[in-house]
């Protein structure tokens, strides 16, 4: 009975300490609330399943995020297929739904930021979010991704450049930050 309570408490502690970070990560990764909620749950369910095999070799936070990374990438892989399908099939259907409202939404800054992130490759996206949004150190990021620290630096740098140029393209970034 005792261990049962302990593990339960442990799980809640984990969750409370990390849900915000995990949510941010998967939200950035997926770009929409619904997927982010599903993914957050999935991350913690996986975590619960793997808790007994956690060997303490990596720090807890690093461990949680390597699970989050796997979950996000699995999601990306699954979605890519359905996206290809939707694009090729539904684009052929005539669209009559795009009123002025929808167009305004399309130009929403948030949408553009989401889209810019979603255009990045999974590797770029992951490193950008981990370093930029979750603010992991280079060393921690390297541990999560199982990359060398040099690779983290280089790929992060490239990812930034790419997102910057995408935001520039949409005129957003220049407007927002006057030089």
């Amino acid at each position, binding site marked *: *009975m005792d*261990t*049962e309570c302990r*593990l*339960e408490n*442990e*799980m*809640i502690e984990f*969750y*409370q300490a990390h*849900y*915000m970070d995990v*949510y*941010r990560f998967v*939200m*950035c990764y997926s770009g929409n*609330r619904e997927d*982010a*909620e599903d993914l*957050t*749950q999935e991350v*913690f*369910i*996986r975590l*619960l*399943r*793997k808790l007994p*095999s956690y060997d303490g070799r990596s720090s807890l936070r690093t461990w949680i995020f390597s*699970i989050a990374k*796997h979950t996000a990438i*699995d999601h990306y892989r*699954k979605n890519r297929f359905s996206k290809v399908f939707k694009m090729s099939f539904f684009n052929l259907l005539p669209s009559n739904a795009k009123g002025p409202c929808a167009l305004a939404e399309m130009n929403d*800054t*948030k949408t553009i*930021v*989401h889209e810019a*992130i979603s255009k990045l490759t999974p590797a770029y996206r992951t490193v950008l979010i981990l370093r*930029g*949004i979750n603010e992991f150190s280079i060393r921690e990021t390297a541990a999560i991704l199982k990359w060398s620290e040099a690779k983290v630096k280089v790929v992060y740098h490239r990812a*930034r450049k790419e*997102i*910057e140029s995408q*935001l520039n393209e949409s005129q957003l*970034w220049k407007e*927002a*930050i006057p030089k």
Partner: protein
Amino acid sequence: MNEKDELMEFIKDNHDLEPDNDFVLSTETHLTRMARSQYTKPRYIQVPALLSVLFICTASLFLLFITDSRMIHEIISGTGQTTNSLPMLYNEPYVFIYHTHTQESFQSKFTNADGKAVDETLNITLVGKRLADSLEALQIRTIHDTTDFAELLNKKGLPSPHAFLLSREKVKQTLQENEQLLVVADIHRGSVSREASTLDKNGVTYAKIELVLSEDSSRHEENLLFAQSLHRKMETAFPGFSRGIVLKKSQSISANYNQDLFPNAVLITIGGVENTLQEEYRTVDMLAEILHEYINEEFTARLTR
């Protein structure tokens, strides 16, 4: 430097990064419930859950008996597959099959110049492939690795006991990439005589199975529980197929057969050099049924929690 940080600040400002409060709370409740049941020993399982597990077990056993003769027939013809299974939950692979001694082959077919039954293509990987196919037909996604560790050894000029060190890397990598795996099986061809390795059932011959465990594995107890569960299932469904569990204490570098890497890891030998591929195939079709049953039970247990 400042400008660069502003870029990230800009992205953060224009992103919904805060989770919904309701969602946070409901997930917490959900996880607490899962945590409570995950670590609950059987005696703490609530009565309804226990009953439903019992019911499902009896039902599947019953089904198994009814379909027994049909199934044997299907195994013989090598075509049919039973179809009752739970839906695939995540569509991810649950079984990993590899062959540390990739080139183990069969005497009747492919004996080489030294009189050893090894072959580069016609070997135990065919048996593994058949097992993977049978599992897929039962809707269990399977990773079948055919890396030729024997060739790798030759290339690197290492002695043969090092094969397990080479396959170890493969297992590690696969486990890392597939966290949901439930079974890791290193499939070998055994080395006992035909008499010991063959089962004759109503005139149809099958290769016998042996489950080999290393006592040096740091996860030996878990490994043993898993192997026992498989052995019991075989004894119930197909008496005589399993030669049992063999415990090895290693003296060499092959040490723990990589069984310390995963609780449900097992080395399975199927038949011996004198068995035919056909006999091996019949047996792995049966083994697929056993693994299928094991995995479905794992799921049923999870779903009813």
